[in-house]
Each structure stands twice: as structure tokens, then as C-alpha cells.
């Protein structure tokens, strides 16, 4: 089993990006299918609970066929035509493209989701600031903001109930939601400014170079993660080129 949870989130992000990079320069089904097979093999060794895997990746499984369907009906027309109605035209070309798209969405989406379900925002922020050297004001500000999302959800609920209590929830749903969204904005700005006072009072934003209570680890596991991403991309491309289906879409 691969202990993927403890891998630095920055490496996970990098591996996901590497795979996608190889897959977005071409639209063919061979490269996507190859990448997908390799990814599934890797994912199988990560020891993710099956229920959790299907639940988290469900959006990808839903998005893939819908995207493919659109391409199937309206995609590039080529070769034999099997069905035609108004703008809809299903042809050899659109079938092939639909298949390629279906596999591609899965090949890019699945590893992204699987890698990210194990990412802890705090570790990710540590990595972004310490490893990628992003400005720490930006990273920590964003991290603190993410933590407030839960409070905003609570606020939204209360706003909704309060509108019912005040007798204005019977109609004009769209307008009410707009009003509620504005109220949430006002509340979130207030929360945000209180938070920024609290952060400033703890010395945040000063001129002193910041130290880090925890080092963002980077070792062989991180390099291996990146390498796996790179290899999947290369193998997928090589197989596609050898079978003659690789087609560069840029340029």
C-alpha cells in the first residue's frame, strides 16, 4: 500500500498537473485509455476505502458521460453518418471524439480527486509557502479564509430561517436569494475584518521574516510521486504515438 496521505500536497498537485499536461495536448482515445489504466493500477494500491472512492469520484463519473454525449451529438462530423436530426449528427468522427473525451475526463479527473481527498489545507498551505515560496501573507490569508467557510454556511442557514421568521419568505425566491447573498457578503466582510485584526494583533504582516512551526517535508516520497505522474504521461504519449493515434491539438 502506498502511504499517499503523508506525501507533501505540493507533490500531489504537481503529479496531477504533469499527467494532465500530457493529456491536454492531444485528443485521442489511446493516450487517455493508457493513462487511465495506469492510474487505476496506482489508485488500487493507495488503499482507499471503495465506498469513499466511489462517493468522492462520483461527480467525475457523472461529468464524463455527459461531456461525451454532447460531443457525440454535436461533435466534429467525419466518416459515416448514423443519425441526423436538426443540428444533431452522429458520425464515425463524433463517436471517436466522444470516446476520447469520455476517457480524458476520467483520466484527468479521477487522479485529481483521489489525490486531493487526502490533502489537508494546513499542510497544503505549509507546502505552498515553504516549498513553492508563495508569499506567506497570501497563503495564510487564504488558509484562514477557508476555515471561515463553515461559519459562512451557518450564517447562510440563519439568514434563510430569519427571512421566514420575518414573513418575507413566501415568494420572490430569486430576489430573496439575491438579498440573502448580499447580507452574507456584509457579514463575511465583518467577520473577515475581525479576523484580520486578530491576525494582526498576533504579529501577522510585520517585517520580521516568518518562521514555521512545522517544516513542510520534501523527500524521496515526493520525488517518486512526481516521477509517477511524469511516467504515466510519457507512457500514455509514447503508446499513442506508436499506434499512430496521437494528434497534437495546439498550433
Amino acid at each position, binding site marked *: 500500500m502506498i502511504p499517499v496521505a503523508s506525501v507533501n500536497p505540493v507533490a500531489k498537485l504537481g503529479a496531477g498537473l504533469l499527467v494532465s499536461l500530457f493529456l491536454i495536448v492531444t485528443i485521442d482515445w489511446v493516450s487517455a485509455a493508457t493513462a487511465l489504466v495506469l492510474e487505476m493500477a496506482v489508485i488500487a494500491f493507495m488503499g482507499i476505502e471503495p465506498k469513499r472512492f466511489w462517493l468522492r469520484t462520483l461527480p467525475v463519473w457523472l461529468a464524463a458521460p455527459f461531456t461525451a454525449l454532447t460531443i457525440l451529438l454535436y461533435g466534429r462530423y467525419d466518416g459515416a453518418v448514423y443519425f441526423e436530426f436538426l443540428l444533431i449528427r452522429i458520425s464515425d468522427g463524433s463517436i471517436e471524439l466522444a470516446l476520447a473525451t469520455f476517457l480524458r475526463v476520467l483520466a484527468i479527473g479521477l487522479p485529481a480527486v483521489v489525490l486531493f481527498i487526502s490533502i489537508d*489545507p494546513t499542510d497544503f498551505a505549509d507546502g505552498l509557502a515553504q516549498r513553492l515560496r508563495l508569499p506567506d501573507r497570501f497563503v495564510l490569508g487564504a488558509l484562514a479564509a477557508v476555515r471561515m467557510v463553515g461559519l459562512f454556511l451557518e450564517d447562510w442557514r440563519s439568514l434563510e430561517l430569519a427571512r421566514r*421568521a420575518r*414573513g*418575507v419568505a413566501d415568494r420572490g425566491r430569486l430576489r430573496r436569494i439575491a438579498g440573502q447573498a448580499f447580507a452574507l457578503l456584509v*457579514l463575511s466582510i465583518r467577520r473577515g475584518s475581525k479576523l484580520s*485584526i*486578530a491576525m494582526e*494583533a*498576533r*504579529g501577522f504582516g510585520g517585517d520580521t521574516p516568518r518562521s514555521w512551526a512545522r517544516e513542510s517535508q520534501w523527500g524521496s516520497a515526493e520525488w517518486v510521486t512526481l516521477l509517477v505522474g511524469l511516467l504515466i504521461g510519457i507512457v500514455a504519449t509514447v503508446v499513442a504515438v506508436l499506434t499512430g493515434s496521437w494528434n497534437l491539438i495546439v498550433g
Partner: protein
Amino acid sequence: MRGLDLRIEPGERVLLLGESGAGKSTFLHALAGVVGDDEGESEGSLLVDGEHPAVHRGRTGLVIQDPDSQVILERVGDDVAFGCENLGVPRDEIWRRVHDSLEQVGLTVDLERNTSALSGGQKQRLALAGVLAMRPGLIVLDEPTANLDPGGVTEVRDAVIRVAELTGATIVVVEHRVSVWSDVVDRVVVLEAGGGVIADGVPAEVLSRQGEELAARGVWVPQHPPARPQRAVRGRQQPLLSTQQLSVGRGNRPLGSPLDLEILSSHALAIMGANGAGKSTLALTLGGLMRPVSGAVVARPILADGAGEHPIRWKSRELLTRIGTVFQDPEHQLLTSTVRAELEVGPRALKLSDHEVDARVEELLTRLRLDRLAGANPFTLSGGEKRRLSVATSLATRPKVLVLDEPTFGQDSRTWSELLALLARLVDDGSSVITVSHDLEFVDALADSTVTLA
């Protein structure tokens, strides 16, 4: 505030008093060096250790009122370490300080513990630990216990005192409730609204000399408790609402055991219980705003008045004359940009005549001392004014049942006794009042019966 001359010696423990709007919070923020140059005007000088407060970041630590707004990071250990990191303290030293600080405030939880799972009192002690880890010479606290239940208040107060004794840090605390701090501070300073100092000295002396005047200004002085209303002879009590094996909760998870309650007219019911026992959820469910997890809230015909027996199925407009709900945070229920318009929302939704709307609004503006604020934006009001407004908006449609969630949280003694008098009168006049509260004195003065959730 302006024209303040004050000298605080190292190691002093000062309680800062004054009515709402006297500038106490601004002063504390200035001490902590977090008042920016673009936020208002300043004149004169304020020196900490003989220098501008912003020079020594971390020399002054600030703890504010709202527990949720000062938790910065997700893990307890990280949150305490945050200040040290900003000051560039070396890693080994940071973790030593994190352990020391958590021990000093008596917060013995795992460093990996999620900060949002802490209680209000724990969050405030966490904030104190975060401040402490910066090794400040001065700790300023802005109503640190105003949002806490009685247990949390003692918990935080004791932690502050222990910290002061262990570290010798200077303490400046602002709080309405004098009794919490009067025994443990060695100096009380009373600020004048508009500027200057009214009184300055040893707590016992200041409180005996100025106690009455302070009480009149809304400060909670133990020797001068706020007035309690005389209750009139009550009218006939009729059942308006009842619960049948009611379980409340978010989603499908019930909080606590099923309840059978009878809500009567001319009766005040208090709902008490510890944090997380589901008091607010019960209030919202009784208010016809949340669906019960199981069981039912049933309105008697006299209350339902043709609208069906389940309040949760009533239209929003039908709730107005039947059950009013006052939320814990008044800001959640604000809809418009003036106080007057805010009061008109309910009566207008009932399609009352212009004449009737005006009459009701005028009456409430006067009765709740909001008349001078009729044109003001509700968001700009003080805490006490917002609370009065949120109660007034519910009263405008004259509901038979009024549900209030922590109406006295963070209120000064003046607003407190006004609310009490107002609610007592409603009950005497035949309404049913349900309050969720931690406030023992309030419950004691108002409630005819009490339910305590486990």
C-alpha cells in the same frame, strides 16, 4: 474618545469601565497597535514601553469578545504557534512555548485537535494561549467573557488571573459585568463617553463612590443590580402550542431526549442547558422554522387560527401574527437600510393599512427608545440598539408567542432591564414568551417555568 490621560504601571491589573460608545474597544485596539492610520483620526500620543505600540509587535496581546473571530488556524497547536511564527521565533522554541502556554491557560487538549470543535470558553483560552506564546508584557482583553455561559466565564477569568500571576504581565480588561473581575483586579478606571476619566482607583473605593452612577450608565455593579419588574396578576393561561415526543437537531441526528412541552399564554418559559445541548435548535423548531427530527410541534386551534396544526407548514406570512422569533445574532434578521423600514417589513407583509403600519412603527420606536435612530442604518447601531430593534421587529406584528434566543448576550445592564421589563409586560398582557438563556438572573426574574436540556 479623546483627551484621555492615563498611566498604567507594569504588572498592574486594570478593569476599564464606561458606557457603550465610550471608546473602550478603540483604546484597547490602539494599545495593541492594530488601529491603522486610515481608520479615523488620532491626536496626542500613546506609548507602550515608551514607544509607539506598532513598534514592538507581540509585546501587547489582544483577546476580543467573539470566540469564533479569533481562531485563526484549524489545529490547536498551530493556532497557538501562529503568533510566534510571525515573530520569527525558532522552531524548537515555538513548540516549547506552545506547550507552556496551553498549560498556563489550562487547556489540555491534543495539539492536533480541531479548533472548531472547542467550546466558547475553550476558544477564548486558546486565544489567550496564542497571545501568551508571544511572551507579551501587556495583555488587553475586550469583553473576553461576554459571549460565554456562566461556566465559560469563570473558566476564562481564572485562566487570565493564573497567567497574570505566572508571567507578571500587565492586564487591561474591558467588561460590563464588574462582579466577574472586581475581586481580582487592583485598579478600576472609568472612562467618560466623549473623553476623559470619571473615576480611577482601587475597585472597592471606586465602586462604593461611583457605583450608582456607573449602574445608571449600564455597568453591572454588584451593589446596584438592575431593577426587576413587578409582575402583574396574570390572565388566564391557555395552551397555545405543545410538543409531542419532540426531538430536534440538524439533519437526522437528534439532540437530547424527546420532549413533551406545553406552551401557555400569559406564561414565560425559559430553556436552559449547556452549550451544544440543542437549545437554539429547539427554539428554532418551536418557532416553526426548523423541521423536527421526530415527533411534532402542534399548534392549538386558538393559535393556529385556521392555518393548520403544524407551524413548520405555515406560510412565512402566517407565522408573523402567531409565532415571532428573535435570533441570537440580530444581524441575521436585518433586511433593510433604515430602522424605520426594518420595523415596517412585518406589518407590510401583513398588508396592513398605511395608517396602521405608521401607528405601530411609531409606537415601537418610542417604546424601545429607537425614535432618534429611525433613519439610521441598522448595521451601524450599537449591540444594545440592535437587540432592541430585533425584538421590536418581531413585536410589530403582535405574535401570540415570542421565541428569543439568548436575548441578553453581551448586553449592558440598562438594555438588560429594559428587555426584562418589556418581556414581563408582554407576558402580563397575555403573550407567551419562550427564552433560551444562559443568564441565570434573567431567567430568575422572568421565567414562570424552566426546562433544562441535558
